[in-house]
């Protein structure tokens, strides 16, 4: 069985978890094993929407102490679950929670793990994981010699399951064993950012700005563009962040975030190697830059050599027309 941890935020299932479940189903079919979706929380976990994704079983690990996320509580519940049910592999989405939790679970089980995988394959009857290393300057393929194989899967990379007539999964509720005093740290509060913007790692379209924007105020140009495009977010190069023009949570590159959106639009970004590392796995890359020699044009599918202050406002008008249709 391949088990997939299903992350919920505000009662909603994370898209990355569904992508991981879809990939687990594809690989499990090759391995001729089943799949399980695993949720953890307080009482009354909602599994709505999961059945359509077709896991063979849905496990709900419940305990009042799991009502808020804690790495220790969730890791204990998941380790016990794995010891009891013995899955061959355990997948997580490589989200903030997945990255926090998966290694803790792996260590609890004495299992090695593969982080932030962008490809999973079956080779000689075992799972082979491929993942970017050196922020995408190279790709490492590996298999794990310990059981279960623990892996986090990068969001926005694996396709969701195509609509198919999925059977009704069996839902198994289990009460987790969380001893008093086990949990020495927990999430006390989630502070929403005012604009509640989409994170660059979750966006389908990332519109990023660099030094060419010349100042913080000109990020407004990109924000206006992003406001037009559904599921888009504004990103930035390291130099824009280091100049204090925009917060570092927007930074794309080796010391920022690694993104793989459907479209990455680089505006006034020359394309330093540490920036390219963070976005070169994007499905389509477009760039607007003054300098025809800028390295960004070597990875761009579509490049416009020109003054961004002339091109971007016109691009906005063109996209408005297209989106209005």
């Amino acid at each position, binding site marked *: 069985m391949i088990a997939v941890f299903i992350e919920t935020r505000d009662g909603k299932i994370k898209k990355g978890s569904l992508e991981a479940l879809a990939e687990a189903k594809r690989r499990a079919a090759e391995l001729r094993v089943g799949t399980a979706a695993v949720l953890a929380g307080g009482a009354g976990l909602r599994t709505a929407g999961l059945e359509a994704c077709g896991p063979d079983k849905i496990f709900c690990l419940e305990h009042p102490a799991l009502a808020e996320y804690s790495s220790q509580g969730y890791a204990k519940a998941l380790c016990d679950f794995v010891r009891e049910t013995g899955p061959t592999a355990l997948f997580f989405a490589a989200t903030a929670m997945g990255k926090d939790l*998966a290694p803790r679970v792996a260590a609890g089980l004495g299992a090695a793990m593969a982080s*932030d995988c962008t490809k999973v394959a079956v080779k000689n009857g075992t799972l082979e994981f491929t993942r970017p290393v050196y*922020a995408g300057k*190279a790709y490492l393929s590996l298999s794990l010699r310990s059981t279960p194989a623990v892996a986090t899967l990068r969001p926005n990379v694996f396709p969701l399951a195509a609509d198919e007539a999925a059977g009704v999964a069996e839902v198994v509720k289990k009460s987790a064993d969380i001893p008093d005093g086990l949990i020495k740290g927990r999430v006390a509060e989630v502070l929403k950012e005012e604009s509640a913007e989409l994170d660059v790692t979750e966006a389908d379209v990332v519109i990023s700005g660099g030094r060419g924007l010349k100042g913080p105020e000109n990020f407004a140009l990109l924000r206006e563009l992003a406001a037009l495009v559904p599921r888009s977010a504004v990103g930035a190069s390291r130099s824009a962040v280091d100049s204090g023009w925009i917060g570092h949570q927007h930074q794309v590159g080796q010391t920022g975030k690694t993104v793989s959106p459907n479209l990455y639009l680089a505006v006034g970004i020359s394309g330093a190697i540490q920036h390219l590392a963070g976005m070169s796995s994007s499905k389509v890359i477009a760039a607007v830059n003054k300098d025809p020699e800028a390295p960004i044009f070597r990875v*761009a599918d579509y490049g416009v050599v020109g003054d961004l202050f002339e091109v971007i406002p016109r691009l906005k008008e063109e*996209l408005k027309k297209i989106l209005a249709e």
Partner: protein
Amino acid sequence: MNILVFVKRVPDTESRIRIRHETNSIIEDGLNFAASPYDDFAVEEALRLKEAKGGTVRVVCVGRDEALPVLRKCLAMGADEAFLVKDETPETYDGLRTARIIAKAVETKFAGADLLLFGKQAVGTDNSQVPSMVAELLGLPQANVVTKLEIDGNAATALREIEGATEKVAFCLPAVVSAQKGLNEPRYETLKGIMAAKKKEIPVIKIEDLGLAAGDLESRVAITGLDMPPERKAGRILQGDPAETARELAAFLHSEAKVI
């Protein structure tokens, strides 16, 4: 406060990576190495905590002798002591192996630490595994990807980045914290610090002396390939009238790439 900081020597972020396919490893000749950039935030945070609350800052690196300059830089920044846990094994990409070495070193050589600070990931392996794994092996709470840390006695709160929001984690010490960019602005070494660091001895702890089980030092990661990223096909580059190029770009994104 008794603070331990763990650092790793990695190729700097401007490095162009080349691969030796026979060994599935990167070619180190010609690369510049430094502490992983997130480790600098961890060291800085430790120094600030020490300045505010007193105590000691000890920096530990698992690696080869080549990592000594990285430790020396931490001493020059102001760390009290630095230790090399000598591990001659080439990169295994196995975070659990490293975590076991660190957890054992903490238990046997550095008992009594209040805070274990790490960078949120070592750039290179990009695993983001070791801090959480060490926390689990030692039974400590954790806060990862931290942009703000406040400590009051044995109680701590940390802000950590999650998708589109910030999470406030409350935990008690001893604990594991991993640093994200934004936590602070790392200081430069002073000339005085550099001179003082030169005189300090960096004790070397042999990995065999930690008392790890033989199996704990084996890598459980079987590397089956290390490759360059797939080359992207040459794209179309347009020059000329901004109105024209903007129209063509929009048309490309909509009709051809179908991303808008």
